[in-house]
């Protein structure tokens, strides 16, 4: 088995076909969007925080693109609920690969990490630590 079908284990396909937390929140604390123009992958993430302004209460996402990018956003939206912004910002590429549970080929890693980067940039913008209109992982 090469990397190709390894990347498309049941979990990924399940999240791609039945995305969790798909849609928009009515009262998000912050919203951020990301796009990889060369791939055409797009992700919008809505995050609602609890009253402590640190704990993530709920995450919703909308998007369009390949199975890897969309499954990653779906899984991340579930994983983040109950986590703190600090924990979100500490996540790195390895955490995303662990979450997906498959080997991601080097050419596709940008698809896998787009959702994470959108959430992280959104959190930093919310905290006033970053000024950015749109996130991309194609750079």
């Amino acid at each position, binding site marked *: *088995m*090469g*990397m*190709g*079908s390894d*990347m*498309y284990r049941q979990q990924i*396909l399940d999240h*791609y*076909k039945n995305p969790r937390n798909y849609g928009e929140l009515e009262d998000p604390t912050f919203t951020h969007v990301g796009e990889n*123009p*060369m*791939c*055409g*992958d797009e992700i919008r993430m809505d995050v609602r925080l609890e009253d402590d302004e640190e704990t993530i209460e709920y995450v919703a996402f909308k998007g*369009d*693109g*390949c*199975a*890897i990018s969309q499954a990653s956003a779906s899984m991340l939206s579930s994983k983040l609920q109950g986590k703190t912004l600090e924990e979100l910002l500490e996540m790195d590429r390895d955490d995303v690969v662990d979450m997906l549970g498959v080997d991601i*080929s080097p050419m*596709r890693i940008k*698809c896998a990490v787009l959702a994470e980067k959108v959430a992280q940039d959104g959190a930093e913008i919310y905290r006033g630590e970053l000024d950015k209109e749109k996130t991309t992982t194609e750079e």
Partner: protein
Amino acid sequence: MSQQNLESLDVERLREDFPILERELDGKPLVYLDNAATTQTADPVVDAMSDYYRRYNANVHRGIHHLSQEASIAYEEAHDRVAEFVGASGGREEMIFTKNTTESENLVAYAWGMRELGPGDEVVLTEMEHHASLVTWQQIAERTGADCTYIQIDETGRLDMDHARECITDDTAMVSAVHVSNTLGTVNPVSELVDIAHDHDALAFIDGAQAVPNRPVDVEAIDADFYAFSGHKMAGPTGIGCLYGKAHLLEEMEPYLYGGGMIRKVTFEESTWGDVPWKFEPGTPPIAEAVGLHAAVDYLEEIGMDRIRDHEEELAEYAYERLAAEGDIEIYGPEPGPDRSGLVGFNLESVHAHDLASIMNDHAVAIRAGDHCTQPLHDRLGVAASARASFYLYNTREEVDALVDAIDSARQLFA
């Protein structure tokens, strides 16, 4: 019609000239269908370059010594040979070596465009332009105050020639068009476009990156003012591109890159330029690559460009028919025929092009997926990305079958 030609093109024999095609990936034979991105390099090309490095590697145009003379002669003769290959009777005086088609576009855009364009001038492009010309002319237009307009494509993926006649006016200074679309496979009526341009005293630049590798091209019959292509898409090496230009235009044009090797006389105050093409080739040029491209041209011509075109069209037609029979595959560009080249761009309904390419990779089938450097065209088609299978002289019908089988396994996986 082409069946006989296909038989006379001994593909099994030709494949021996491309040892890379014997590779297996995870025990599966490589099926290389990404030839519009780059073709594999023929052994005679590798041998010619190896011979240059092993026997007469030297810098050109400056050495008195024997090796430099040999290298200089080989480098200069490569210009003449490549010019002859595309029907340029002026030889080296009409053939500039660059590093790729993109640089050829930039050379004309800077050397000619920055001096000649101004507010009120129009550069007419097509909706199917590669970023190589689209982005370049967009930038030059922005800097000079000129405007870019785009000839539309019709629903079949062909240029709307009525719209072309509307777009090209007396304000038009340059018409820049692809000969063959790298995304749709459309073979454009370039000589008609050139005639329209000339009727309005505009120049015409034709991007032949997807045409010269796979069909006979005669720049003088087309009457193009400029014509560009790349070595690595025609069984030759990377690192070398070509720019044909009419002698009187190149003569009048100022250089766009400066340095050694392109000058006649230099003082602390000023410099004068050498002859065409050298005034456009400053610094140490791609010498080994020129030797390799010469060998590639010899190789292709010996096979016969007519036969290469027929073989590719035959494969493209077969692939088109097999994919079209699937029902859940959208194919872009014209139906098979004389105005369709040997590439097929498509999308499988339920699977993103990148997922498709990843799964096909698992079957050792190499295709391209993405925007193919034609983002505005993809916007026009209403898709973010497409998959593309592109063929060359060494591909077989069995490889088309492998393509269809691999698509089917992606379909099953996502079902």
